[in-house]
């Protein structure tokens, strides 16, 4: 089976032109967003509060990451938000003025103003009625910018704390628009159930606007993601409650078109950037595989397991992944062994691991710069899933990546426990260059032309 290659039709040419100008980010975010192609100034770390540590509550931690700054590699701002909300993922609005950050437990969504003073974000708004407005979605996970919109994927529901859930669509002001339920056997909502599963579970969102496609993946419900990880692994009933599906959606109508079997909890989705690369990758947390979700010669989206990640019997637990801007490489972090693995994906059907290095006793997220030269790593997976004892390191680390030599060079570490901050989870970039029409002190800027 081969990928469908598209000729440059008139429509395609228009889309390609748009994509070459505006469609990009630091490799993993929405194509509808301005990107930082040069040096980022700040990394915003959505951080979980820990009982017995500091003020015990979740916070947005701002790290100065510009080497020219006097406060380089220092925490320059800490904004506590009240409660341990199970801080998890965050996403920027299409204009990158606001950072939306969710609590998988409390269901609160914190909207931070990151443009007025990128060095010191402020809390702009808190959405408290997410569950009520959406009709019962629990666990706001991915915050994905669409034009004038934020699409939020849920993980669970308020009926049984299981995995059936939906997507919630908000406008950029933070006003609720609509709920889009994931297809279940009881209501496929017009989607085709290709295989054996239509579990209705949710996790991540990514789009390929050129193909009018939105993809979602599937994890597990509140009872599991909030449960002690070790306890869950020993609970045979709980282990049955993981997602085994990905859903192909019509991006514009928000209608699910097809449910694809992807057994073993497909989590992060990363879509290729190339104009003719009609495919995305995901990794399955439990079965430890790289899956390719691609458009075939007949224009049908398919799923195929294309590589193994480590030894599944040792539960390496692939977590965050990051695709390079040229679609040639895929970073895969594996939580349990604390390793970052680099796969050559120049042939997307045959990824080959080229490199691995242990970053720490545990590692979860990776955020790489657009040029791929800098890779930031953080530790925390979930509040009750992180390791115990001395292995429970919590930090953000910066490494320099040399693609030719296949070498990671450690630059600095900020210890989040030593700083009394908490568990470091997702990292998003900020830059002054985003908020000025002029190129700023050598920082390369591409603005979304509206």
């Amino acid at each position, binding site marked *: 089976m081969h990928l469908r290659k598209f000729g440059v039709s008139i429509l395609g040419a228009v889309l390609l032109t748009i994509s070459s100008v505006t469609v990009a980010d630091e490799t993993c975010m929405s194509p509808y967003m301005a990107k930082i192609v040069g040096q980022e100034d700040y990394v915003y770390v959505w951080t979980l509060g820990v009982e017995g540590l500091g003020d015990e509550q979740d916070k947005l931690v701002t790290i100065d990451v510009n080497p020219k700054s006097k406060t380089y590699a220092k925490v320059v701002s800490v904004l506590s938000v009240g409660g341990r909300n199970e801080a998890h993922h965050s996403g920027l609005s299409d204009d990158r003025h606001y950072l939306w950050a969710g609590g998988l437990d409390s269901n609160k969504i914190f909207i931070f103003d990151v443009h007025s003073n990128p060095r010191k974000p402020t809390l702009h708004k808190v959405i*408290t009625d997410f569950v009520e407005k959406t009709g019962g979605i629990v666990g706001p996970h991915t915050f994905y910018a669409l034009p004038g919109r934020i699409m939020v994927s849920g993980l669970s529901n*308020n009926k049984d704390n299981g995995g*059936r859930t939906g997507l919630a669509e908000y406008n950029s002001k933070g006003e609720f628009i609509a709920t889009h339920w994931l297809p279940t056997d*009881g209501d496929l909502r017009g989607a085709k159930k290709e295989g054996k599963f239509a579990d209705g579970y949710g996790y991540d969102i990514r789009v390929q606007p050129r193909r009018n496609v939105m993809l979602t993946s599937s994890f597990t419900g509140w009872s599991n993601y909030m449960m002690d990880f070790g306890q869950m692994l020993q*609970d045979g009933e709980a282990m049955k409650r993981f997602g*085994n599906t990905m859903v192909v959606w019509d991006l514009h109508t928000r209608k699910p078109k097809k449910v694809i079997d992807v057994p073993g909890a497909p989590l992060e989705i990363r879509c290729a950037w190339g104009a003719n690369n009609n495919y995305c990758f995901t990794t399955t947390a439990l079965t430890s595989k790289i899956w390719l979700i691609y458009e075939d010669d007949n224009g049908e989206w398919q799923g195929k397991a294309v590589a193994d990640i480590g030894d599944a019997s040792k539960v390496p637990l692939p977590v965050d992944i990051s695709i390079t801007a040229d679609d040639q490489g895929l970073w895969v972090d594996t939580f349990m062994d604390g390793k970052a693995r680099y796969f050559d994906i120049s042939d997307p059907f045959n990824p080959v691991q080229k490199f691995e290095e242990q970053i720490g006793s545990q590692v979860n997220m990776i955020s790489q710069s657009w040029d791929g030269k800098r890779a930031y790593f953080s530790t925390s997976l979930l509040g009750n899933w992180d390791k115990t004892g001395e292995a429970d390191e919590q930090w953000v680390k910066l490494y320099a990546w040399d693609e030719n030599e296949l070498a990671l060079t450690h630059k600095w570490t900020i210890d989040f426990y030593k700083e009394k901050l908490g568990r470091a989870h997702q990292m998003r970039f900020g830059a002054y260059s985003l908020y000025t029409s002029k190129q700023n002190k050598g920082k390369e800027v591409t603005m979304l032309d509206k």
Partner: protein
Amino acid sequence: MSEQFFRKQTFKIYLLILPLVLSNQISFGNDEVNYSGPGDDKNGYDSRDYTTNSLSLEDRKGKKADIIKYVTIKQLGLPELKIPQNNKITREKIELGKKLFFDRRLSLNNTMSCGMCHVPEQGFTNNEIKTAVGIEGRSNLRNTPTLLNVAFNKFLFHDAREFSLENQVWQPVLAHSEMAMPSFGFTIKKLELIPGYKKLFNEAFPGEGINMETFGKAVASYERSLISGNSDFDKWYFGGNKNAVDENVKKGFEVFSGKGGCVSCHTVGKNEALFFDNKLHNTGIGYAESMGILKKIKTKVQLAPGEYVEVDNKIIKSVNQQKKNNDLGLYTITENPEHRWLFKTPTLRNISLTAPYMHNGIFSTLDDVIKFYDEGGFKNELLSPMIKKLDLTQEEKNNLKIFLKSLVGDNINILIADALSTPVGDLTKDDPNWANDTDMGYDN
């Protein structure tokens, strides 16, 4: 409507239909939609041939029912219910209690309600996890017990620590590992500030309003109404309907009451059967868990339908944050060493809906439970003398399971549908919360 008037009317109805009920000519349970069973069915997940059977959350609407009749009218197979003198049953109390039961705002961070663990379509327990998970994911040692027929319990909780539903209600609300409300007073204040509750409390408890007692009475009234008898077994055994069950059920009951000896604890009377004895017993499960007898070097972990790996327990231990506490049962309450590993006998009514089984959810299926008892439990110095090796044949085990499945009450679908028709209470912009700028009385 006054309580006295209501009581007279229901008593008249009771007298009118009692003969019909006893002769099994009317049924409590008829409904066109089957709500019973998990919405996310994992039956067969151990096979690679598993196919999903997931229900739409949007279709989970249920149907309101007048469930007070289950309290006021005796059901076949169940004894007459004794209602506390100081908490007469009324529709207003049941409706208020039901609303509170499903209100997630009754937890510190607005995420947990009684109904998040006692999930209606899962037999008012939780089929999806062995032991309960509370607020912020905190671990609890025990399996969520069903609330069906809980009104007949002399003791409440697996370790018998409580004696009335009215008092029991508060413990999960205030427990650090369950709903974690900080105090009685804060809970009451929060309820007063949530729009609508003052009116409902005043209607249910005229002149009393929201306080510790009325809160307990309201929730207890709803829980008390979750009564489900009139099962196929009841229709045969107590109703005299020979065709209500097949021969395998009858043979299974023979094993149950004879060679199996199950009836010693899961008692069956001449005219009714609670299928529990209101006593506590040591089956050895608590002992075995405390002593680490069940531990293995590796744990079989499921990765996907029909796909398993054997995982070294060192790996599992590296992510096991839960503090290890042994569950010593009644001893936890009395500190009497003779009470170690004593746990309350659970009812067997509706047992096919309430997996997983035992106080710690250790067994996933009825087959597992039957096998355990057939092999004589786990030996220990305090093992109940009633637990002994049975040597049941496979046919006897099969029939025993078939019998157990005949104990589902015929109104179960109505109770579930009624529960599902109750909106889940979630935080709104009008509710007390710092992010809503609500003055809780602390602002200067």
